[in-house]
Structure formats: structure tokens, C-alpha cells
């Protein structure tokens, strides 16, 4: 039986399959359809200190093999999360990664402190990459100094593993992975959504109330895989890859490109029962390829045959 477990600092995952933040509610919504303890981890919906109502609808639009969202981080805030959701997640033995968002470094720090004291939080994912809100988040995620500053400030505030989540809307994502590493991150996760928009041509209005939103789903997978591959070459940190994963094969693409674990977001909307086929698919692959553990596969892209250029000038 091959070993699917993954260790990232103190974060121990039974398998590399994580429910992506914002695509799995607070986890408890899905307790009826999937045994939460069978997932590698659950990354809960992005939390601010305070409650937020988010953007008015329309909040999503379907696009070719993808979707745009501009939810605007509606959420119950960290305190209600700890009171109302965390106990149930604990009872269900979910490995909980809390995705945190702030408008200032102090907010990230305060969130980290509060969550470090809460029982049942396994790691913090720093959302510095949400394209849908003007204030905060992305302003850190699009600046190397900002990324470094947030990460190093949070580093001082918590012993929990910290995982900055990187935006793909940058020229050189690998430099952001490096900034995160330098700031003391335990891993990086990527990618968040691509800033995008859709227009209703009859009314000539944006289809989203927020005008722009984030593109996710299979459409973005090839770009996300490339970004994981680039980060793999730039940093030693474990990488948590995501973007359009909808099958075990897709997950394996990310792992072979360099991801130690993966997250699945949009595909859960289409198929909330996707989890055990995903996990079984990884196990079957390892068995079929006679690999003893998933770690043997991470970053094992064979570019050898491709390195020889032929008549190409």
C-alpha cells in the first residue's frame, strides 16, 4: 500500500488532496457528502477579523471551462468561525487550514495570534492574492516587499505552519515564492484566481457586480502547472499547487511539476463527491508505477528527452 501522506512543517496530511479555500464553505457544509477526516486537509473560506457581507450578486459567471467569481470574501469573521465552526470541524477530525485575509499587516498578525490560540487549527494560509477586493490582500501579493513583510510579521506571531497563497497575476511568480521563503514561510500555495472579466454585450454591462472577478477551473490549469514548475526551480519550500484540478491525472500533473500537495476548488462545485476518486486515483497510480510514496513523485518531471533540440534554430 503506497504512502500518500505528506508532511509540511508540523502540518501532517494523510494524503495530498486539500479542499481549496472559498470552494468548500467552512467545511461543515460538506460533512454530509464527504467524511472530512479522509481529506488531506480542508482550507476554509477566507476569514477577516470581522464579518463581511461581500459583493452583491451576480457573483459568479461561467466561462469556457472555467468560472469567474467575485464573492468579495463574504464571511463570518474569525471569532464566529472559532465559536461556530471550529468545534464541529474538530469533532469531525478535519485537518483545518485557515485562510486569512487582512487589509493591513497588523490584521494578518492579529488573525494569526487569535487562530494560534484556537484548538484545531493545523496551519494558516495567508491570502495575499484575492483579486476581488480593493483593499489589502492583493496589494501585498503583488509586491515582493509586501509579500516578505506580511510573511515575516506573521512568522513572528505564530508557531503554526504558514502558507502564503500567491497570485498568478504577476510577471514572475517564482520571485514571490522566494520572497515568501525569505520571510519564513513553511510552504507556498498557488495559484489563486486570475483577474478576469466578462461582459454582457446586449446590456453592455459587466456580468459581475464587481466588474472584475477571478478565473478558476480547468481553463487555467496549464498556466498554474507552469507556475508550480517555475516555483519548484526557485525555492526549496514545499509547494501546494492548484488551479483547475478535476481528476487524479490533473493532480498528478501538479505533483510531477513540483507540488507536494494540491488543492481542489472549482471541481468540487461540479462534483462534490470527487474526493475519494481523487485519492484512490493517486494511490492507484503509485501502485501501478511501483512507487512507495507520493513524495517520490514530487517534481519528478523528466525534461531530458525534451532538452535535445533538433533542427530547431
Amino acid at each position, binding site marked *: 500500500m503506497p504512502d500518500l501522506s505528506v508532511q509540511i512543517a508540523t502540518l501532517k496530511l494523510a494524503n495530498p488532496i486539500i479542499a481549496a479555500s*472559498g*470552494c*468548500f*464553505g467552512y467545511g461543515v*457544509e*460538506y460533512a*454530509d*457528502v464527504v467524511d472530512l477526516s479522509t481529506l488531506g486537509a480542508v482550507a476554509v*473560506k477566507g476569514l477577516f477579523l470581522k464579518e463581511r*457581507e*461581500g459583493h*452583491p*450578486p*451576480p*457573483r*459568479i459567471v*461561467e*466561462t*469556457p*471551462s*472555467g*468560472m469567474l*467569481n467575485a*464573492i468579495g470574501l*463574504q464571511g463570518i469573521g474569525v471569532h464566529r468561525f472559532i465559536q461556530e465552526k471550529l468545534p464541529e470541524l474538530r469533532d469531525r477530525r478535519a485537518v483545518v487550514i485557515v485562510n486569512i485575509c487582512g487589509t493591513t499587516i497588523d490584521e494578518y498578525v492579529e488573525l494569526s495570534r487569535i487562530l494560534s490560540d484556537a484548538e484545531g487549527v493545523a496551519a494558516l494560509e495567508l491570502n495575499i492574492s484575492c483579486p476581488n477586493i480593493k483593499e489589502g490582500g492583493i496589494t501585498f501579493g503583488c509586491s515582493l516587499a509586501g509579500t516578505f513583510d506580511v510573511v515575516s510579521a506573521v512568522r513572528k506571531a505564530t508557531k503554526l505552519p504558514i502558507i502564503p497563497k500567491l497570485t498568478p497575476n504577476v510577471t514572475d511568480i517564482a520571485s514571490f515564492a522566494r520572497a515568501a521563503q525569505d520571510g519564513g514561510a513553511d510552504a507556498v500555495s498557488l495559484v489563486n484566481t486570475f483577474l478576469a472579466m466578462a461582459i454582457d454585450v446586449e446590456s453592455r454591462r459587466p456580468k459581475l*457586480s464587481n466588474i472584475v472577478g477571478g478565473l478558476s*477551473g*480547468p*481553463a487555467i490549469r496549464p498556466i498554474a502547472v507552469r507556475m508550480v514548475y517555475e516555483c519548484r526551480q526557485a525555492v526549496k519550500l514545499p509547494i501546494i499547487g492548484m488551479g483547475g484540478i*478535476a481528476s487524479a491525472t490533473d493532480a498528478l500533473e501538479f505533483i510531477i511539476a513540483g507540488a507536494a500537495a494540491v488543492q481542489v476548488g*472549482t471541481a*468540487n*462545485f*461540479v*462534483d*462534490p*463527491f470527487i474526493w475519494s476518486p481523487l485519492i484512490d486515483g493517486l494511490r492507484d497510480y503509485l501502485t501501478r508505477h511501483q512507487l512507495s510514496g507520493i513524495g517520490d513523485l514530487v517534481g519528478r518531471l523528466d525534461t531530458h528527452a525534451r532538452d535535445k533540440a533538433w533542427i530547431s534554430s
Partner: protein
Amino acid sequence: MPIDVAAAVVANTRLSDEYNVVALDAPSIARDALPGQFVMLKPSAGTDPLLRRPFSIFEILRDETGQPAGVSILNKRIGVGTRMLFDVQPGSHIACLGPLGLPFVIGGSPRGPDALPSEAWMIAGGVGLAPFATLAEMLVARRVPATLFYGGRRASDLFYVDWFERLGVRVILTTEDGSRGERGLVTAPLARALAAVSTDRLLTLYACGPTPMMAAVAALGRKHGRPVVVSLEQTMGCGLGGCYSCVVPVRRNGSAHFVRSCIDGPVFDSNFIVWDELHR
């Protein structure tokens, strides 16, 4: 507890060049389904279109022994997914997730019989008829006198009228072009009836249709002091509370909040909806 089945298409019955009924083989969903609940259907395999589409459970289909064997949906062709369902071939399979959402409440609890209304009026606009076939069956089973106010653009947009009448439901029809029933909107006969009905009747209104129609019914209900239960239609990414796409503005403790209509709805007490802010 919702389940996902690769449901075989048992029949595709065209009702017009826009409407059809798709019968799906899904006994376990049929067994659990309650009136007002919905399913999420994947119109085609592959990633284009990517998302599932929400559909009210129209009928509970039964086998010869009367056991629940499947569900049907009343489909109106308006876009890419509903077109695929309009053209779906019997024998093919459709991923069907359900039953989802909160059902209609008659009286106290969705399952229990306590404090039934003395009368129930259903107000349907167009494809908003869909949730009322199962609701009507439940009303009739519980001996609640039921009326259906049913409006469409024209006579050829009205379906299952005989079916409701055979069940014992009083049906009042309107069409915008006057080709069947009263000419105009369904809210006109409804308004007259509300003015006429005795105030000591415990009357509940159930409305499903275009948002402006539901808003108008809600206003009429408020005016006449009658509870109005609505079934809202918002774009839904997941149907399970995961994405927060389907929110509707609901008044709670004085202030308005966005509430997920897939798990806290689609059925709502219309009094709590902030109609002016509801996305149409």
C-alpha cells in the same frame, strides 16, 4: 443527505419548442425528495459548460408498485445548458445531485401535518410551475384545498393544466396575449381573489416565477396580511453552500444580510426578502 447519481434519461417529452420534461431514473433521490427541493444537473460531460444547473424537482416518478423510481424536471430552454437538456437523448445519462435545499413548509414542519393552512394558493409564472406539482400532491394528500394561479405568455406556454385539475386543484389561468384564460398577468386575478377571500381563512400563498412576479405577489401578500412563501431562482455554482454565489438579501435582526439560497432556500418566507435588492 444529497447523493449524486448518473441518472439514465427515461424519457424526453417535448411540450413545445421551448419546454420539455426530462424523466430521470433516480430512485434514491426520488425517495427522499420533498416538494420545493431541487437537483443540480450536469447538462453534458466535459468542461464546457462547466457548472451544473439547478432544477426544481417537478414530478416524483413511480414504478408499477407505486415506489419512487425517479424524478422529472420541467425544462425551459433559455441557454446552453437548458438547450442540451431540451435535446437530451433517452438512454443517455445525466449526473443528478439531490435532493437539495429546504422544502416548502405547509403548516409547522416540512414532514409533519401540524397547523395546516385552511387553504393554499400557488402562484406560478411560466417555468415557475415546476415546484408546484409535488406541492399540490402533498396539499391534496393532506386535504388542504389548493388553487393554482398560473400565468404564461400564451396558451401554448401553459402545461399540465388538466393534471392539476384531475388532482383536484382549482386552476386559474392568465396569458399575456389572452389566448387562454384571462388576458394579462397572473397577479390580477390573484389581487381580486385576495380582496374577496374571507379573512378568517388561514390562507398561505406559494409563489414561483420571474422575480418581478414574486415581488408583486409578496407585496400583495403583505397588503392583505397573508404569508407568502417564495421559491427563488439565483445563479448557483454548487447547490451545497460551498461557493456563496447564490446569496439573496435577507432581513434579520433589523439589518440585511446575504444568505445562501441553496441551503437556506430556495424556499423563503417572502417577508424576510429585501425585494428591492434582490438580483433579477
